[in-house]
Every structure is written in structure tokens, then in C-alpha cells.
């Protein structure tokens, strides 16, 4: 495991539920607010190249705006085709009123 590299995403205040914020790293990471908890996954749908932060977020499920593949935001699992590969997930934390994400490739690295 490499050393965590925490990147500031945005202020907790104003980060509304069922919203997402994109961290412009390569590949981009999406951070979601699910009922006050913050989760981070790859932003790019594993089916084609569409941003999941642009998708439709319903509680813990994000639906790609392009072809409606569904993923569980909490663990990256595929819930509905056309995607067949899960999303990578990233650790998040809240510190000093900000949401942070560890952008290093962790345990879910492929």
C-alpha cells in the first residue's frame, strides 16, 4: 500500500445530499453525499466514458446519465447493465469542515 494522498474535495457545508463532486485527477474521482456520509468512486462509468457525477443519484445508487448502468456508490458494485465491471472506490474523510479523498489506488486497485 502506498502512502495516502489526501485531496481536499469541497466544504461539507453546501454539499447537498444526492449530489456529487468531481476530483479532476486522472482518472477522475466522484465524491458522493449519501445521507450525510461521503463516498468516493471512479467518476467514469465502466461501460463507456461518461461521468457518473453527471448521473442520477438516488440514495446509495448512481445511474449513469448515458446508458443508465447502475452502481452502488458505497462499494462500487454493478447493480444494472450495461456495465459489467465494478467501480474502484477510494477512502474519504471529513476534516476541518472539508471532505477529503485519498486518491492513491488502494485495495481495490486492479
Amino acid at each position, binding site marked *: 500500500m502506498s502512502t495516502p494522498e489526501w485531496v481536499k474535495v469541497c466544504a461539507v457545508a453546501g454539499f447537498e445530499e444526492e449530489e456529487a463532486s468531481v476530483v479532476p485527477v486522472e482518472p477522475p474521482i466522484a465524491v458522493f453525499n449519501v445521507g450525510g456520509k461521503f463516498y468516493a468512486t471512479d467518476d467514469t462509468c465502466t461501460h463507456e466514458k461518461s461521468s457518473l457525477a453527471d448521473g442520477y443519484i438516488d440514495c446509495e445508487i448512481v445511474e449513469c*446519465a448515458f446508458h443508465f448502468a447502475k452502481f452502488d456508490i458505497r462499494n462500487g458494485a454493478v447493480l444494472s447493465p*450495461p456495465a459489467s465491471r465494478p467501480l474502484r472506490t477510494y477512502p474519504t474523510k471529513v476534516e476541518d469542515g472539508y471532505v477529503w479523498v485519498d486518491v492513491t489506488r488502494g485495495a481495490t486497485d486492479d
Partner: protein
Amino acid sequence: MTNGCIAVVGASLAGGRAALSLRERGFDGEIHLIGSERHPPYERPPLSKGVLSKMLPVEEAYLVDEADWERSEIALHLSTTVSSIDANTQSLELSAGGRLRVDGVVLCTGARPHQLKLPGTDLGGVATLRVIDDAEAIGQRLLRGGPVVIIGGGFIGMEVAATANMMGCSVTVLEAGDVPLSQAIGAEVAWWITEKLRERGVSFLTRTSATKIEGTHGNVTHVITTSGGKLPASAVVIGVGVSPNTDLAIACGAKVDNGIVVNEFCETSVPSVYAAGDVASSPDVILGRRTRLEHWQNAQNQGIAAAGSVLGHRVPFREVPWFWSDQADLNIQVAGHPRGSDETVFRGDPESDEFTVFFLTGGVMTGAIAINDRRTLRSSIRLIGARSRVEAALLGDTNVALPKLARKV
């Protein structure tokens, strides 16, 4: 049903999804997926884009990794057709020899491109585009450069035109009507898209079709048009629609009417025989009559629905149809049926190349077209499906969040 044997005819998007869904739903018996092509099930949208331009390896279009079929214990019979289905003995005969005794059949036999009855369509470089092998052969021609003539300004024609143009070929589209795409999406947005492709260098000849294709040494050289023009061509792509592959259904006694007639459970008129995808003529929630859809979404989701029906999980398949088309840098998404409405509402400025047009009939949304505006489609589908009145002024106001409007209905 959890045991027995089910055959899915057509190793396509619909067929592949049906087979996978049978397994995912807990069916423990034998699943046979039979396809005439040498490729495992794949998605067709990349064929007119990435596969054509050789930017995308064909394997990227495959529905799932090849090993997943074995892992799911689905017997994949490729390069194989079904020569007959006997509804009485519930058996089907394979072209490779052998007979399968089945408890259920899902027909996903798809459609085949219309062929033009013109002199010269048998020349080298003249092709229709339906399967991976077509895309690879046409792409090989395009790599050598144009000029390219596209006969038919439908979605396939426009996508191939945009891709060939991006590959550096000079491209001319022949369209028999006044404006390409207008049969599918109405003239207003069709004009806008056509102008965008024209700006990017594609030429259009409207109210024009081909009368003859000429060549030398077996290869195409020119297309002669109805207006007497002689267009040089090193490749010709014909995209003038498809016909459903209904022979097998007819032979086993299923009712056919521009496609295999199915109800909302994907059941044909023959017991234990189901149909899904491009070949199926199904009830349409908006039109209130049967229609045959040639969209990716319908193929995927009706295939999944058919698998459910086979196993007795009878949930009516009643989705609002939607599809997309990528043409050069334009992403066009269409929901419902945009034609035949009495009111159009723009959301966003067409000048910005990012906007959505809603189509209302009697104040009820019946269709929507989103240009480079992916966020509006989901809500549009919901609004169309709700079939209740929506206020045009709210739809057109970009300060009004569309998901909020959609959640209210």
C-alpha cells in the same frame, strides 16, 4: 421454472442479455445461446464509430468478457443458425447438426439491412453496415481515404458520414427526403444536426437517391444520382432501413406483422416461444399500439424482460423508448416519440450546442431530444412515462431543476 432447457436464438445484445438474465434470476438448467456470427454477443453502437475508425478494438464492443459465458455456464453456439423449431415437440434443429429439446425459446433474431435494387450493388466497396465484419471491411476502405457516398440519411448513414469525415474522407450523403433524420426525429432538430455536420465538412444532396453504382475491375468508382449527378466513390455505404428476421417465427407458427407479434410479457402467439429486441413488435406505452423498435435500450431491456417471463416472473415490459446517436462531437439523445407533437419547447440555447427540445401533445410530453445535454434525458423519460400535463414555461426555464419537475409527476 428453475430447471430444464432454454434456447435463446440470436447471440446479440437482446439474446445475450436474455441468456445472462436467465442465469442471474437463478435458472439452474441448460441455456443455449445460438448466433450466426463468429463473434460472441456484442453491442452494435460502436460499429459506426470506434470499430469503423479502428480506434476501438472489437473486443471492447463485446457484452461481457468471453470467459463470462463459460463462467455463467451458457452454451454459446457461434457461427450456427437454427434451421427449424418444432413447437409441438418443443425441439429445435441446429445448422451444425443436432437437435435440442427445449422448454422455452427466446427469439432474438434481429433484423437485416434492406438491400437496394440497383445495378452495381455487388461491386467491391459497396456495403451495408449491421455486423462487426461489415464495420471492419468498410473501415478498411475508409482508411485508404474517400471519397465516400452514403445512401440514406438515417442514423446509421449520419453516424458513418461523421466518422468517415473525421477519418479524413470526403463524404456525400444522399437523402431521398427534404432533410436527413426527419422521419425519426422531425424536421426542426434534424435540420440543426444536418447543418452541424455540414459545417464539419459533410456534403448533403437532399431529395436525391442513387440510380446506379458504377465500377471498374469489380470495384466501385461512381454513384449516379437521380438528379443525373456522377459522384466519385471509393466506398459506398447503404443505410436505408432494416427488415425483421421473422422466417423462423413464421415457420413455427408465430403471428408476424412487421416483426414477431408479442404482448407486454414478450410472449408470442405460440406457447413457450418468446421474442425480444429488433425483431419483436411490441405494445408501445405512448403510441398506444404495437411498434417495432431498433434501439439498444429496447434490445437490452426487452431481452432481460423476456428472460423473466420465461421463468414466470411476469412483469410487463413498458419502458419509454430512448436511444442515442453520436455524430462527430454531437451526442444526440432521444426519448419517446418526438414526431407528431403540437408544441415544442426549447431548454437551453441551440447556439450553445447544448440544449434539449421537448415535444408536447395536448400539454403532455411525448418526446424529447437532448443535444450534448445528458442530464435531461432521465427526467424526460420519467415525464413522458407519467403521461400527465407539464407546464411548458417550467420545462423551458433552465433555472427550474428538471429532476424536481419529474419527481412531482
